[in-house]
């Protein structure tokens, strides 16, 4: 069986699909809390949302170690990422440039990933948190750069205490991880610069 038969296809037109995916991510992280979406151009491997897989296709390569949950690390998602992006998968969350976590799972905490250091805060992990929905959940409101006043988000399927983790992450500023919530083709950026105003 050819490898293409086992591994679902990635981008059919890498130049323009990467560009479009990047622009959606750029808007997501520069206008935190806004719902951005990627095209449904690819068939993601089992365990990765279309938005997650598209973001990694656009950004990850042999220069960016990726952390996956144990349930995905030995499955088709890992094979798919190695094949399409040439990424190295790492066991230590603190070494990851990108990480994918299940928003409902209790571990690992955001604090397990690399927050950068005070001279190079850019050397931090970007954590893609897969959730069951990007609206209709218990809401909380955001403020900070990219947000005129405040902006509400209401993702579904986040573990209890996740907003506290976000708040603790924001308190590290300018250090901290940058979070992208992903579900289906949608995503919401929550960079470290975003303050969690109140949870409800």
């Amino acid at each position, binding site marked *: 069986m050819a490898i293409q038969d086992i591994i679902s296809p990635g981008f059919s037109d890498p130049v323009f699909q990467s*560009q479009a995916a*990047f*622009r959606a991510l*750029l808007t997501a992280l520069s206008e935190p809390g806004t719902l951005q979406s990627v095209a449904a151009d690819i068939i993601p491997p089992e365990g990765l949302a279309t938005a997650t897989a598209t973001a990694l296709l656009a*950004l990850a390569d042999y220069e960016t170690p990726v952390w996956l949950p144990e349930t995905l690390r030995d499955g088709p998602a890992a094979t798919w990422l190695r094949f399409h992006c040439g990424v190295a998968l790492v066991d230590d969350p603190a070494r990851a440039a990108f990480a994918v976590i299940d928003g409902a799972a209790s571990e690992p905490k955001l604090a397990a990933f690399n927050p950068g250091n*005070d*001279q190079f*805060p*850019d050397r931090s992990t970007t954590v893609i948190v897969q959730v069951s929905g990007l609206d209709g959940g218990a809401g909380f409101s955001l403020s900070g750069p990219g947000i005129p006043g405040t902006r509400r988000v209401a993702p579904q399927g986040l573990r209890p205490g996740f907003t506290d983790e976000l708040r603790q992450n924001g308190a590290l500023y*300018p250090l901290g991880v940058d979070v992208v919530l992903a579900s289906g083709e949608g995503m919401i950026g929550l960079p470290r610069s975003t303050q969690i105003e109140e949870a409800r």
Partner: protein
Amino acid sequence: MTVHQMPADNTKPAYNYAYLDEQTKRMIRRALLKAVAVPGYQVPFGSREMPLARGWGTGGIQITAALIGPADTLKVIDQGADDTTNAVSIRKFFERTADARTSEATEEATIIQTRHRIPEAPLKSGQVMVYQVPMPEPLRKLEPREAETRKMHAWAEYGLMQVKLYESIARFGEVTTTYDYPVMVNGRYVMSPSPIPKFDNPKMHMSPALQLFGAGREKRIYALPPYTSVKSLDFEDHPFRIQSWSQPCGLCGAADSYLDEVVIDDRGGRMFVCSDSHYCETRRAEGHRGAMLGDAAASGLVEETNP
């Protein structure tokens, strides 16, 4: 046919869309995402050697190349004008390598690459400003060593900058920095706004547009997300002030724009005209007439065309 479409058997090399290879674009895109997450912090990036000279906009060009796609409309300005030689050269580069749709109209552009100015027309949500930056480090003139300035930013040690500004006030009665006037971003990082006149600094504060800064030779990228606090450094007893002129634009009569001084004879004759060429043309098309428009048309400085 543009260069990136050239067939492989052509004798000329076929370049990738927007010149940069995809691996390089990914590297720049990752740096840009970190830059928007930490507004005003200078992200080091693996700046590539470009076919245009260092110091001539290679940082801005690399950012634009990483951003641009078929849905974009690109405007390129230098000194506020679309027809300055380097702006023409950079616009042609993207027309050749990325089939870029270009425009001189500020409101039509999705990406505006600029050197030394922010357009006068208010920027909108969804637009991206790309600034060409020669010296990204606002502390460099106070401390030449990168190893030291990096620590100063890490610890938010900006006392030296305050002292420098205050010395200027003690000597001249005001801060004598007229361009590249340092700003405090999101209450955390002191940032160079690039060599725009301080007249343009207030436009950065809470702008609805995304603002990206590229320094190719110095290999740094930084950013201001939309709606980010950008405060020009000042003192309570010496608040920040912008330039003003005693007369309006000689061509369109605008009294609210940054003016260039044009020497018109060798007897001290001067004319002041908008530095933003598109703004000036738009106003004239709307029927605004400056005091010297007739003379300027007669001397060939502007020409009359049929609409």
